[in-house]
C-alpha cells in the first residue's frame, strides 16, 4: 500500500487560505453593475450568457482558485509517496524471523519457525499481521494484512540462510512497514551479540519490540579464513567454545579431495591448517570441518585459485634499498599467487626513468619515499593516478609533502604537514569501510602505537575513514576520476609507529591494497549477501560478470561467534535508537521526498490552474 505523506506538514495550514475565495464566493459576491443601455435589440442578438451556465463557470473558477491555493500549500509541504501502508488504521504485529547463519545450529531454525507461527497465531485479533525474514537483507514474506493463514504459510516456507545478522536494518524495515500504525514487533532470533550492524535503524515510540529468543549452540568451531600462501592453502579454524577441541580440516579443489590436516584448538583459540597445493594452478578451493554441535553454515570456506588475480604493487622508496620497504614487502609476499600480491620496489629516481610500459601491469603504487623524484617521475605518477589505478601515499619521513602536492596537483587535493611527536592511537572512523572488513570494528587496530604522525588536511570531498586518538585524520580516502587514493598519516616501515609489528598490519595492508586495486583487479572474495542476485546468497564459488569470473562467497566470519546477549541488552540497544528514530525517519522521508520531487508537479499544476483561472475569469469578465 502507498500513501501520501508530507515532509513539512505545517505548511498545509496555508491551505486554509483556500477558504478565502470560498468565503468571498459565498458572502461577498459582487453584484454586477447595472448599465442602462438603449441599443438592447442588437445586444439581444448577441449570445448573452445564461445565468445557469455562468453559475457553473463561477463554480469552476472557484474550484480552480481553491485548487491553486491548495496546490501551493501542498507544494510547500513537500509531499511524497511513502512506500508503506501509510494512512492505514489499526494496530499491527510484525514478526521478524532471523534466518542468518547463526541460526544454523542443530534444530535452531525449526524452533525459530515454530516460535514465529506461534506469534502469528497468538497475535491480538484486531491486529494486522506481517512476517519479515532478516539476515544480510530484510524481506517481506507476508505483507501487513489480516491474512494470518497467508502469513503462517509464508513462515512455513521460510528457508535457512547463510548471511550475517543485521538487527538494525531489520528493525528499521519493520518500522517502515508500520507506516504510522501502532503495534509491536516480535523478533524471533538467537540474540547473537555480533548482530548489531552499523546501519542506524529506528523504531517508532508507539511500536513495542518483543523478543522470542531461540537457544543456540554453546560451542562452535568455524573455518574463518582460507588463503593461499606460497603455494600452500592455509585455513584458519576458530574455536568459540570454552573447552579444547580437535578437528580435521578437509581441503578440496573443485569437489576433488586434496587432503586433510588435523588441528588442535585451545578454548577460544584458533589454529592454521596448511596444505601444499602442489602443481595446482587454478580451481575452486574449499576447506571444511565436521563440527555438528555448532553452526553448520560456517563449517566450510571457499577460495578461488587464480594466479591472474594477484595484485601488482610497486613501492616507491627514497633510495631503492630493500630496507625502506621491508615490512610492506614481507606483508605482501606471504600471500602470493591467486588472491595474493606481486611486489616490486623502485627508488624515486629510478621511477623517473621508467617508461609507461613498465607501469602497465602495476595495480597500485605505494609511495614510501619521494627523494630524488624528478619532474618526469612526477608526471608518471600523475598519469598513473589518472589511469584509474590506486595510490597509497604514506606520510613517512622519506616522503616530502610539498613534492607530492606539486606533483599530484589537480589529481589529489589532500595534503599534510609535519607536527610535533605525540603518542597517538589509531581507530577506524568508518568500521564498515572495506579496508577494515577483517577487523569487525576497531579490533586489534587500537593496539598500534604512533610516536609521530603527520597532520592530514583533507578537502571536503575526501572521506576520513580512520582517525588518531586526538581526532585528526589518520587515513583519508580520495577519489580520482576513475581510481582511488589512500593517504596514511604515518609511515609503514617501522619508523614512526609499531604498526608493522602488530598482527593487524598484515590484514590492514592487504585489504588497503586490495581496495585500491579493486577498480582494476576485482575482488575474488565476498560474504553472503554482498553479491547481487541469488548467486550471492549461498556459500560457494560462483561465476560473476559477463566474463564469468569466479569468485568465492563465504559466510561472514562474525556469524561464527556464538556469544549471545540478553533480552534486556537487546532492548537497550533498541531504546538507544528511539532518540534518533524521528530524525532518522525524517531523514529517510526527506530523501524519499527529494527523489520524488512531487512539489514540482504541484507547482506545475498550480500554474496550470492559475492559467485556466485567468482564461475563465477573462471570459466571465
Amino acid at each position, binding site marked *: 500500500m502507498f500513501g501520501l505523506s508530507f515532509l513539512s506538514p505545517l505548511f498545509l495550514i496555508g491551505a486554509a487560505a483556500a477558504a478565502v475565495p470560498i468565503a468571498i464566493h459565498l458572502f461577498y459576491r459582487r453584484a454586477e453593475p447595472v448599465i442602462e443601455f438603449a441599443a438592447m435589440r442588437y445586444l439581444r442578438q448577441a449570445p448573452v*450568457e445564461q445565468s445557469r451556465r455562468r453559475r457553473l463557470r463561477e463554480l469552476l473558477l472557484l474550484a480552480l482558485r481553491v485548487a491553486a491555493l491548495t496546490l501551493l500549500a501542498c507544494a510547500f509541504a513537500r509531499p511524497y509517496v511513502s512506500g508503506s501502508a501509510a494512512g492505514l488504521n489499526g494496530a499491527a504485529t510484525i514478526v521478524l524471523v532471523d534466518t542468518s547463519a547463526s541460526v544454523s545450529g542443530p534444530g535452531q531454525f525449526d524452533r525459530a519457525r515454530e516460535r514465529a507461527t506461534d506469534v502469528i497465531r497468538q497475535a491480538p485479533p484486531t491486529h494486522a499481521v506481517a512476517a519479515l525474514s532478516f539476515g544480510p537483507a530484510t524481506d517481506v514474506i507476508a505483507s501487513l494484512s489480516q491474512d494470518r493463514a497467508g502469513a503462517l504459510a509464508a513462515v512455513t516456507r521460510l528457508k535457512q540462510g547463510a548471511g550475517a545478522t543485521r538487527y538494525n536494518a531489520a528493525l528499521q524495515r519493520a518500522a517502515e512497514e508500520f507506516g504510522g500504525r501502532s503495534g509491536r514487533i516480535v523478533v524471533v532470533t538467537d540474540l547473537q551479540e555480533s548482530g548489531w550492524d552499523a546501519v542506524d535503524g529506528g523504531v517508532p515510540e508507539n511500536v513495542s519490540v518483543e523478543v522470542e529468543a531461540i537457544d543456540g549452540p554453546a560451542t562452535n568451531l568455524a573455518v574463518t579464513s582460507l588463503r593461499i600462501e606460497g603455494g600452500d592453502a592455509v585455513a584458519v579454524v576458530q574455536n568459540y567454545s570454552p573447552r579444547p577441541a580437535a578437528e580435521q580440516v578437509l581441503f578440496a579443489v573443485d569437489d576433488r579431495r586434496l587432503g586433510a590436516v588435523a588441528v588442535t584448538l585451545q578454548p577460544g583459540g584458533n589454529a592454521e591448517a596448511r596444505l601444499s597445493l602442489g602443481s595446482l594452478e587454478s580451481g575452486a578451493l574449499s576447506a571444511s570441518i565436521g563440527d555438528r554441535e555448532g553452526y553448520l553454515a560456517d563449517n566450510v570456506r571457499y577460495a578461488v585459485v587464480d594466479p591472474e588475480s594477484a595484485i601488482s604493487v610497486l613501492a616507491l622508496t627514497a633510495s631503492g634499498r630493500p630496507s625502506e620497504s621491508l615490512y610492506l614487502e614481507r606483508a605482501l609476499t606471504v600471500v602470493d599467487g591467486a588472491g595474493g600480491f606481486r611486489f616490486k620496489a623502485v627508488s624515486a629516481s629510478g621511477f623517473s626513468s621508467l617508461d609507461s610500459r613498465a607501469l602497465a601491469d602495476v595495480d597500485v603504487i605505494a609511495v614510501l619515499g619521494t627523494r630524488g623524484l624528478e619532474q618526469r617521475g612526477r608526471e608518471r605518477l600523475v598519469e598513473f593516478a589518472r589511469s584509474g589505478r590506486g595510490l597509497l601515499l604514506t606520510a613517512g619521513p622519506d616522503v616530502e609533502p610539498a613534492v607530492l602536492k606539486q606533483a599530484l596537483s589537480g589529481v589529489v587535493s589532500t595534503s599534510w604537514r609535519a607536527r610535533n611527536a605525540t603518542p597517538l592511537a589509531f581507530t577506524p572512523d568508518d568500521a564498515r569501510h572495506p579496508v577494515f572488513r577483517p577487523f569487525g570494528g576497531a579490533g586489534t587496530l587500537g593496539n598500534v602505537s604512533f610516536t609521530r604522525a603527520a597532520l592530514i588536511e583533507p578537502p571536503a570531498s575526501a572521506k576520513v575513514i580512520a582517525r588518531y586518538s586526538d581526532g585528526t585524520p589518520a587515513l583519508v580516502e580520495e577519489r580520482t576520476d576513475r581510481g582511488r587514493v589512500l593517504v596514511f598519516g604515518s609511515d609503514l616501515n617501522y619508523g614512526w609507529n609499531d604498526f608493522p609489528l602488530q598482527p593487524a598490519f598484515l590484514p590492514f595492508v592487504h585489504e588497503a591494497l586490495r581496495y585500491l586495486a579493486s577498480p582494476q583487479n576485482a575482488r575474488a572474495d565476498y560474504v553472503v549477501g554482498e553479491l547481487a542476485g541469488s548467486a550471492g546468497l549461498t556459500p560457494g564459488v560462483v561465476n560473476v560478470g559477463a566474463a564469468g569470473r569466479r569468485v568465492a562467497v563465504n559466510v561472514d566470519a562474525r556469524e561464527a561467534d556464538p556469544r549471545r546477549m540478553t533480552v534486556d541488552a537487546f532492548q537497550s540497544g533498541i531504546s538507544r535508537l528511539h532518540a534518533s528514530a524521528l530524525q532518522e525517519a525524517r531523514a529517510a522521508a526527506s530523501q524519499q521526498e527529494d527523489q520524488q520531487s512531487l512539489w514540482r508537479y504541484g507547482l506545475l499544476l498550480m500554474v496550470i490552474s492559475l492559467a485556466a483561472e485567468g482564461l475563465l475569469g*477573462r471570459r466571465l469578465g
Partner: protein
Amino acid sequence: MKTGESGRPSELRFLDPAVLARLGTLELKARTVVEGFLSGLHRSPFKGFSVEFAEYRQYLPGDDLSTIDWKVYARSDRYYVKKFEEETNLDCYLLLDVSASMGYGSRGVTKLRYGSMLAASLAYLMNRQRDAVALTTFDDTITAMLPPSARPSHLRSILVTLDTLVLGKRTDVSKPLHLLADGISKRGLVVLISDLLDEPERVVDGLRHFRFRGSDVIVFHLLDPAELTFPFERAARFRDIELGDELMAVPAVVRQPYLDALHQAIDGYKQELGSAGIDYQLMDTSTPLEFALMSYLSTRGRAR
C-alpha cells in the same frame, strides 16, 4: 425668457454663431422639384414671385443665358450673371424621435439633445431660406406637432418646443410616420432624426410612405459612441432604457456579435433607404454637430 449658457436667450442656444456662419455659406438643395411659389436654387415649376438680388458672378459656360446682366456687359465688356437669394414655399418637416431610448448618452450629450440641436440648426437654415418648417416629435405616437410656416416667429416657436422636450416612451417610428405621411398634402422635404431602434422593415415602410407621397426624405440616424463601439469591460447587467428589462452580459464575449448585429442593421438601412431614394446619414453624437451637418450638406451639394 430663459437664458442659455452663453447668456443668449435660451431658444437661441442651439444657434451657435460659428455653426450659423458656416451654414450661411452652404446651400441646402433639394434634389427633387417641389411645389413652391418662388424660383431659385430649388428647381421649382413655378417661376418666382420675389427675387432678391444677392451678387454678381462671372459667367461660366453652362449658365442660363437669361441670367446674364447685359447692362453690366455693356459697361465692362464682360459677361456677368446675377445671383439671387431664392425663396421657396418648400415645406420642410422635421421629425424628431423623443422616445426613451433617445435619452441615452454616454458622454454627457444624449441623443435627444443632439437631435434637438440638429433639428434647430436645420430649422434655422430652412427659415433663413424662407422655407416653411414644421416640427413633429414622436415616440410611439405623435407627442407634439408644429405646422409648417416660414414666418420668423415660427422659428422661435420651434426652438422653444425643442428646448422643452420631454422624453417619451417606447420607440415606434412607423406609426407616427404613417400618420404624418397621410397628413402631408404637398410634396416637401421630410427630415427624420431618430436612433431607429425599431424594426427596420417598419421604419423603411414608413419612410417609403413619404416617398410615395412625393416628398424627399433625409434620415439622420443618431447613435451614441458607446452604442457604436460597446466599450464596456466588466460583466454587467444591461438594462433596457425603454423596457426596463435586464440582460446579463460579458462585454468581451458579446462585443463582437453586438457590433456585427449593429453594423448589419446600419448596412440594411443604407441599402434599403438608398434603394428607396432616401438619404441616410449615420451621426455619431460625439462628433461636433457642425462637422456632422457640414459633412451632410457637402455630400448633398456634391450630389446635386
